[in-house]
């Protein structure tokens, strides 16, 4: 079993094969992964919110917001040995709406996160090769940096690879 490195809310981590990056209990957050298929280096940003605009730049944690976390993830991964921008691809997981809306409460942070993350990836030019977003269920993932596959678990369902 390789080393498993957990990535918490608002955190960003980069690792390489044979390590595994893991995130447990993903709700409205969106997990963005970048993976270099040649050097087998990968990174994860655990995005909580869609947009950092209007928030004091001195006080924010850039890893929390879709618009700032993806550039930060690229900055963290680009200096690793053997990483080239042209080899990087992205996968995204999460963005669910855990609590079904009631007549006086609606929460769409999950959906907004997924939209914002896709926009930020497009802006940076990273191809999005797999996604599992939306719905009402929590998710956990283990990102195996040897195979580049993301093992997705949802309660009551068979795990599957992205």
């Amino acid at each position, binding site marked *: 079993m390789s080393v498993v490195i957990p990535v918490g809310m608002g955190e960003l981590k980069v690792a390489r094969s044979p390590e595994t990056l893991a995130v447990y209990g*993903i709700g409205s957050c969106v997990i963005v992964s970048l993976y270099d298929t040649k050097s087998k280096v990968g990174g994860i940003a655990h995005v909580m919110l869609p947009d950092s605009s209007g928030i004091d730049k001195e006080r924010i944690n850039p890893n929390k917001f879709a618009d700032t976390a993806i550039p930060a993830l690229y900055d963290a991964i680009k200096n690793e040995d053997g990483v080239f921008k042209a080899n990087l691809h992205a996968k995204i997981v999460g963005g669910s709406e855990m609590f079904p809306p009631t007549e006086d409460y609606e929460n769409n942070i999950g959906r907004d996160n997924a939209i914002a993350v896709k926009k930020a990836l497009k802006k940076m030019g990273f191809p999005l090769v797999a996604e599992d977003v939306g719905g009402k269920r929590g998710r*956990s993932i283990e990102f195996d940096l040897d195979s580049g596959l993301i093992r997705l678990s949802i309660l009551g369902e068979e795990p599957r690879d992205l």
Partner: protein
Amino acid sequence: MDDITSLTKIQLDALREVGNIGSGNAASALAQFLNRKIDMAVPSAAILEFKDIPDILGGPGTRVMGIFLKVLGEISGRFLLLIPEDTSIKLLKTLIPGCEIEDPLKMSELESSCMREVGNILAGAFLNALSALAQTPMLNSLPSMTFDMAGAMIDSVVADMTAVSDKVLMIETSFIESEEDLRIHIFLLPEPKSLSILLQKIGVV
């Protein structure tokens, strides 16, 4: 009060007392509903890093029942009940005669509606006590319920409160019904903009 980390010890003690009064009332409502004696753990009011919250329940991947309500009124906030899997099964079996549920993922409509009602009763009782204390009406929204991973629920509830700070103020308490070991965790998260109003109402500005 934009910065919750500047709360004084006296203010935190007062917020803990808010939790005490609210959950005391909620515990008696639950005791009446179940026709049992319910003990209450000492409440805590704490400023926590959001990423540490799921550990209270046994880690972000822990299976748990979550009932979520918005607190509406001059003092607004969020009210989250997290009920461990074994307690949710015991509650359903106590409340619904003949209920044989084994996996809360497969709850029937009757069972879901029963758990939402538990949420409604607990939140209503908690907020009633708080309204009386703060002399301002506080109502709860309709409950929304799910059974899933603890971390997934918590990130969905706290996400937009954490734009600036990595910390949230949480008043937490749990009930224990000693014979059956029923545990219910109640979390009250005042909206940051409501916190100064709440502190003013309870006289600890």
